[in-house]
């Protein structure tokens, strides 16, 4: 059960990051957001 709660949290955080990626105007910050997104997506897909 805890596993799936963590997956839901990861999906929520990834959603926030994507929303922030589109509202953020500074390119450096956008790259940082994209970098953080990679491990979250891999964890949501349960690949890594």
């Amino acid at each position, binding site marked *: 059960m*805890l596993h799936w709660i963590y997956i839901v949290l990861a999906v929520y955080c990834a959603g926030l990051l994507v929303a922030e*990626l589109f509202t*953020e*105007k500074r390119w450096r910050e956008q790259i940082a*957001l994209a970098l953080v997104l990679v491990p979250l997506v*891999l964890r949501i*897909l349960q690949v890594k």
Partner: protein
Amino acid sequence: MPQTLGLHHARALGLLMTVAALCVVAGAEFVAMWSPDTFYPSEALAKVDSLSTYCPSLRGTRADTRIFVFEGRDPGPTLLVLGGTHPNEPAGFIAATLLLERLTIQTGRCLIIPQACASGFTGTDPLEGSPQTFSLVTGSGTRRFRFGGRAANVVDQWPDPMVYLHYPSGQQLSGNETRNLNRAYPGRPDGSLTERTAFAIVTLITREHVDVAVDLHEAAPEIPIINAIVTHEKGRELAANAVLNLEFEDLQYSLELSPTNFRGLSHREWGDCTRVIPFLMETSNPIQGRLRGRTSEELLVSGVDPWYRIAERLGTMRITYDPGGESLSRRVARHLQGLRALIDAYNEQHPDSSFTLEGLPAYTTLIHEGVERYLR
């Protein structure tokens, strides 16, 4: 005023596509680790079973693993050999592989689990820079073997608790030890994936009436318990005889007694919970050490590390490292020679019910010709 797409939106879209591409590239590498390794068992193979036979809830999970069963013509005792309890300790896994590919057996039974922690073989430890695989050129061509992490993959068992409470003792360990098979014995059928794996192994030992069980490991050169045989109280005499006989062959193995207050380990719990006489063997492996240099496939196979050479020369630490290198062949040879000595000692104590395992290369031959020469 209607909102229009700005430059930052286009950049965000481009970055999202880059993220997708990175996930595909990285994901393909991680998923490639899920493919099982191939083994070529010797003609003495009677059957291949799986761990889920002993704990059905493991079926379909990445923790389920193969058990190779070898049977001699005549009845006799049963031996269990475990490799890959820690998938980042390749000598244990390769020694078990060599055993199952070369073994001939006259009396008794031998059960071999080359990848006890199968889930751990599907991913490496973070921040270690470990190679995902290593290659050996054998008679049948280049064979690739996976090099995993110390414990079960977080994808299969996640999240880790802050503190790991061992069942049933309640011993407290660091949270990440919850995925360590060699802290999970005796396990339980409704526990975590690692606890269920441990439970299946203990059930196998009980149900198959295993007489002697050997768990093959490696450790960093600076760890005190290295080139050692660790045993439960009931294996003390047998292990002492084995170590003495190895001394006559000019091979030094230290004899360590399993601590009674350190719970969850194979040499403690197998001995306490079942009738088996358990042993655990360790070799010195520089790729696991904190002083190591480049963490490469070459270091894994050759065992030559310049920083350990310097550390050994300075003598400021207790390091068990041969300046010539701790090659994989040498580490596998040590495991097999230790196993042979334990079996000989058992046979001396049980002349009416003894093992006859054959087909394995001699210690010096294996080192000189290389382990790849004896893998199929």
